[in-house]
């Protein structure tokens, strides 16, 4: 039996009838065609599908769309504001925090949530903070640096963030 859901994604409200078993990641990728959110493992280990659900980073491969009814979701596509990069996006590019780019959207979404709780983190804290997300290309060094640098910038200037 299909259920109607209304979900706000990146500021736009969508109402659709969905199968209860439809995974949120598929709703985002296929129904809404926001393909920046990726699927890497299906078992909630890799974090490629990380989005913000009411501001918290979650793994959208392990949530049913119906559970997100009424929620506000932010995906990587919502990060830019007024055509400008979010400091995290900027820092990932500046400090070479990505290679194949597949884990990047999830990593960015996770970093937003992490910095919300810990705006001035140590290297060690960043490493634990992104331990929900696997990257196979970068060896994490530059991701850690990018988050450090973005945090610095975000402490200086008020950033309009998603969600």
């Amino acid at each position, binding site marked *: *039996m299909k*259920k109607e859901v209304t979900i706000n994604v990146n500021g736009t409200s969508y109402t659709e009838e969905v*199968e*209860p*078993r439809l*995974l949120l990641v598929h709703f985002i990728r296929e129904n809404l065609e926001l393909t920046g959110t990726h699927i890497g493992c*299906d*078992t*909630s*280990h890799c*974090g490629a599908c*990380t989005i913000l*659900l009411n501001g*918290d*980073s*979650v*793994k959208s491969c*392990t*949530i*049913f769309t*119906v*559970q997100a*009814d009424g929620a506000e979701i932010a995906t990587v596509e919502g990060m830019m504001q007024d055509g400008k990069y979010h400091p995290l996006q900027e820092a990932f590019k500046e400090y070479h925090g990505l290679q194949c780019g597949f884990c990047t959207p999830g990593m960015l979404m*996770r970093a937003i*949530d*992490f910095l919300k*709780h810990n705006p001035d983190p140590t290297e060690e804290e960043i490493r*634990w*903070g*992104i*331990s*929900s*997300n696997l990257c196979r290309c970068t060896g994490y060094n530059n991701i850690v640096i990018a988050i450090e640098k973005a945090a610095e910038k975000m402490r200086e200037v008020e950033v309009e963030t998603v969600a």
Partner: protein
Amino acid sequence: MIPASFDYHRASTLQEAFTFAQEYGEDAKYLAGGHSLIPMMKLRFSEPAHIIDISRIQGLKYIKEEDGILKIGALTTEADLEFSDLCHDKYPILVDVSKLIGDPSVRNKATVGGNLAHGDAANDHPAVMLALKANIVAEGPNGTHNIPVDEFFKGFFETALEQHDILIEIQIPATKAGNGGAYNKIERKVGDYATSGVAVNLTVDTSDTVVDIGIGLTNVNPVPMRVSRAEEALKGNKLTQELIEKAGKIAGEDCSPTADLRGSEDYKRSITKELTIRTINKAWERAKASL
């Protein structure tokens, strides 16, 4: 990995949840954070025909001290514990454990109630609640009942919750001077289930004599276990490294781990011993600091 079809029912009150549960009986499963159930469903190891979403039930998400008791609502997430000022100030053991459960994103969804209600000896909260001598409050169609944690874990993935029961609250005796707790686990990598985990909650007096002690173990026994013999060895005695060593040794002896990819039975006993020693020391350090 796609789950089988099911019907979805969202309960906004406990009563509504019970009504659904009674209607669909064995074919129904409660869903809170979903981080135990949904992976099983995606693998099609679990194919419930009905899912009752209890995550929106109001009033089950809190961490508060009341009448000398720390009360945790069952829908409190691990992240709520991790970032709780109250826990940081007075219950660091709960911060220890929440930081070691899953990973940061999982902790945003996973609930304390779910972690316990699953009855999985590999989950981390059971050992902690054993150490803290918690009281589990469950509610079902026939009303509310209290289950002392020692009576909660019945067997392999089996709890004292009755068929339609929902775990609604965890009650923990409020901390007092001389009390300190700690949790630690050895895991193969971040996010893994414990190879072994040890929870210790210790109360000492100014002469370092053990007034009260709880020790729980994670994933080294088919059922979450309390190391009663070690607790007895410590209680009423002045803490020394020899005594702590002895308690560790008992923990290693009394647990009943199974060999798996994480290691042999011997290995798990050995690290359980060592981890027990270290965790008691950590708890002791905190206990002394609170005096």
